[in-house]
Each structure stands twice: as C-alpha cells, then as structure tokens.
C-alpha cells in the first residue's frame, strides 16, 4: 500500500529539490502547506487555495501542477521541484529567472515563482509535442510545437498576475526559448 498509514496520518518521502525528505503528514495537508510550513520553502505562494490562480505551481516528476490541490500523502516517492531548486547548487540563477529580472517580468512578485515553474513546465510540454488550445489541429502529432506569443499566452493562462505583468512575462519566456 505504498506509504505507511496510521489512522489519519502517513509517513511519506518526497524528493524536494533533489533532497529526500521523510515526514509524517496529516492526510488533510496539501503539498503547498507542507512546502511552506514544514519544509521552510516559501517560494510557492498561496493565492486562491482552489486551483484558480497558479501562484502555487511547482513541478512534480517534471510536470507543472497546482500544489494547493495535491494532497501530500499521494506524493510518496515523487520528485518535487520548487522555485528554490531551479538555480541548482550554484549562485547563478536559472536562465528563466534571469530573463524575468532582465525583462521586468513582475511588479509585486507574488505570482512570479508560479509563473516561472509553470513556464518551465510549459516549454517542456511543447518540446514533447503537447498541443494547446491555440495549436493548429493540422500540425502533425508527436512533433515539438513552436511557441509563438499566442502559444505562450495560452499555455501560461493558468497563472494569473494581478499586477498585469503579462507582456513582460511573455517576453521573458521568449528569451529562453530562442
């Protein structure tokens, strides 16, 4: 049965930004709260807590997801990457982080960690040939999908920005896929 479960708690091991972390979680806890409150990783933000804003976006096994709707107990054995893990061990920020800085891709910055994780997921999806709502249905399946502005805007539509930094966010993403 995977994780060890006793009543309303279970032991789970998550690989967070490359490091295994074993903890006992109340089944009610979502990944977002575990990251922020238990693992001291406040990068992922709580905007709506209901899947409606994308501020909590992280990568689970390389795929972008809303951490506010994922129960931590379900993720035993999974690889989690948060914005804190993008730069790796070095001092150098990830190229996408640098692009956000150079392009002024934020104002208050609250949505930014979610935007960056989401954009990384979106670029990988397009490379893997995943279409989007605006992809021409005639494009042969299985081929990487080129990301023009409409594609980037559609693929990042799950990330709201109250400051309206959208045009700069699109430019930052364009910088890293070129």
């Amino acid at each position, binding site marked *: *049965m995977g994780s060890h479960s006793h009543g309303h708690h279970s032991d789970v091991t998550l690989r967070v930004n490359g490091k295994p972390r074993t903890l006992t979680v109340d089944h009610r806890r979502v990944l977002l709260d575990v990251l922020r409150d238990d693992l001291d990783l406040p990068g992922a933000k709580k905007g709506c*807590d209901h899947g409606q804003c994308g501020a909590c976006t992280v990568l689970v096994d390389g795929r972008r997801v809303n951490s506010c*709707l*994922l*129960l931590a107990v*379900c993720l035993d054995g999974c690889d989690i990457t948060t914005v804190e893990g993008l730069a790796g061990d070095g001092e150098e920020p990830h190229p996408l982080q640098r692009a956000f800085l150079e392009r002024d891709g934020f104002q208050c910055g609250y949505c930014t960690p979610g935007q960056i994780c989401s954009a990384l997921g979106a670029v990988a999806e397009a490379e893997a040939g*995943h*279409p989007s709502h605006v992809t021409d*249905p005639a494009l042969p399946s299985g081929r990487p999908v080129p990301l023009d502005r409409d594609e980037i805007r559609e693929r*990042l539509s799950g990330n709201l920005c109250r400051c309206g930094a959208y045009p700069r966010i699109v430019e930052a993403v364009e910088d890293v896929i070129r």
Partner: protein
Amino acid sequence: MKPFAYVRPGSVEEATDAYASRPGARYLGGGTNLVDLMKLGVERPAALIDVSRLPLDAVEELPDGSVRVGATVRNSDLAAHPLVRDRYPALSQALLAGASGQLRNAATTGGNLLQRTRCPYFQDLSKPCNKREPGSGCGALEGVHRDHAVLGHSDHCVATHPSDMAVALAALDARVELHGPEGTRSVPAAGFHRLPGDHPERDTEIEPGELITAVVLPARPAGLPSAYRKARDRASYAFALASVAAVVEVTDGVVAYAGLAFGGVAHRPWRARRAEEALLGAAPTVAAFEHAVDLELTAARPLRDNAYKVPLARGLALDVLARLTASARA
C-alpha cells in the same frame, strides 16, 4: 476539513474492496475537484481511496480498432496522444479548452467525467441547494443563474455539467467502462450523465462503489472530421457558457453521419438527436444546418437571465458544422 483515512490500492479489485469495507469512502483521482470540494466542506469523506496510480494509465488501440483510454490517463496526456489527435480531434480540442495546463496535468479521465457542477450555491454551505442537500431548495432557480441550464432542467435543479471532455465523448459515441461489486458493465457516454428531474443529487448513472476503469472510443481507423468549440467569459481558463462538439461525415454530397452535442447548457452533455436526424441524408448547406440546429433548440427553456445561451449555442453549432463540411461544400 474532517480527518480521513487514506489507502492506495494496487489493483481494481483492491480498490472496490477497499470502498466496500469503508463507509463514507470516496475514490480519489487527481483530486482537482474532490480536494477543492473537501476544502469547501461540500465533501466530507471518511476515507480516500487513491486510484490515481492504478495501472489504468494506457491509451491503446484494441484489435477491433476501438481505442481504450484508461481511467487514470491524465487530461494533458490524452489530449496529446497521437491516436486521439488523429482520429478524435474533437476530444483533444475539448480537453485543451478546459481548465489550465497545471490542472490538466493532474486531472484524470475518470475524475473529469465525475466532476461536480460549478453552481456557486452548490459550493456554498450557507445556501440552499437540492443537489448538495436534497429538499433544501434550489438557490439558483430565482437567484444568480446566468451560467445555468437552458435545456432539460427541472424546478429542483438548473445546474449545468462543467466538463468539456464529456461533451466530446457524448458526440463521439464513446462508452464508459465501470467495475463494481456486481462485475463490469459499459454505458454510453451520452447516457452516463443524468437530467436532474426529482433527484439532482445524482449526477450520473454510476452506482455507489463502482469504479470507472476506462473510456472506449468507437473504431474509426481513418478518423472522421470532428471539432469542439467553446464560448467563455475570457479567452482561456474559464468554464463554458456554451460549447459544441460535432462529428460529421459527408459522402456523395449528403450527410452520411452526424454526431452533435452541446455543453454548458444542461445537466448533462446535450446530445442533439433531433438535429442529427434532420441532418442525415441532407446536403451540407447552411440552410440545412440552420434547420437542424433550430429544431433541436426549440426545446430550450431559458431562465430569467440566461436566454443569451440559445443564440450562442446556435452560432457555435452552425460555425462548427460549416467548418467541418467546408471541403465537401467547395
């Protein structure tokens, strides 16, 4: 949120057994709807049976040419699958018109079919709602119901079903495979969701404890022209105000096959059988499409504030039918 037990079965049988032995249990797919409703207090399971890692994650062509989609296939993977894009484009398009990239990565085929209505009264414990609490009344009937049903509703409930995917499955004549204590059965996707009638608390024909194991798409080795179009309040990441899925085949200058379903207008995907009958054997002209779609939509009974949905659905259907038959009409 109420505390709950958690189990992760390794097989379909273990899952249905776990359900049977735990009163108040719920199956958990991606959790994007169930966890949301648990946070709101609308759902209060005593146990979650996590079926998201069951070995039901394949999209495969069966010997008879049909395509079987496992219940745990994620919405994003289904939309991207070559078999789906090449043979059932309406399904891929419907999935991609729904939710966001993040949500589609988590959402499963089974969970998508069983997602609950987005009626705001349903989600608000302080409001009356017959679907959430039978007999308490329907807050939307005389309340805020701009997003609600225009077809097939009752005085007990005027909610719409929110799934885009389900609309495409209905138009495509897919079937839903269920595994329960009594064994397995398969029901047409177009008949899987119910109209509210006197029992709006029942969204679908599924019996307690039954597990969705797969969705099966009918054999179409050469594919058929199909498409999905959705109208919403913003360009992306919003539920349908109205939508349409259509499959049309024109042979020798007449419509040889038509499957048409509306979304966002009823308690279930609205399969437009009357329109389909009118289309069969007709030349694919704009006049024939108008006649057929109007025949279907005469059944519409808009509420005080949502009459706009009828011309909206009409326009979407006419547009999709025209596009799908453009080459035949050229």
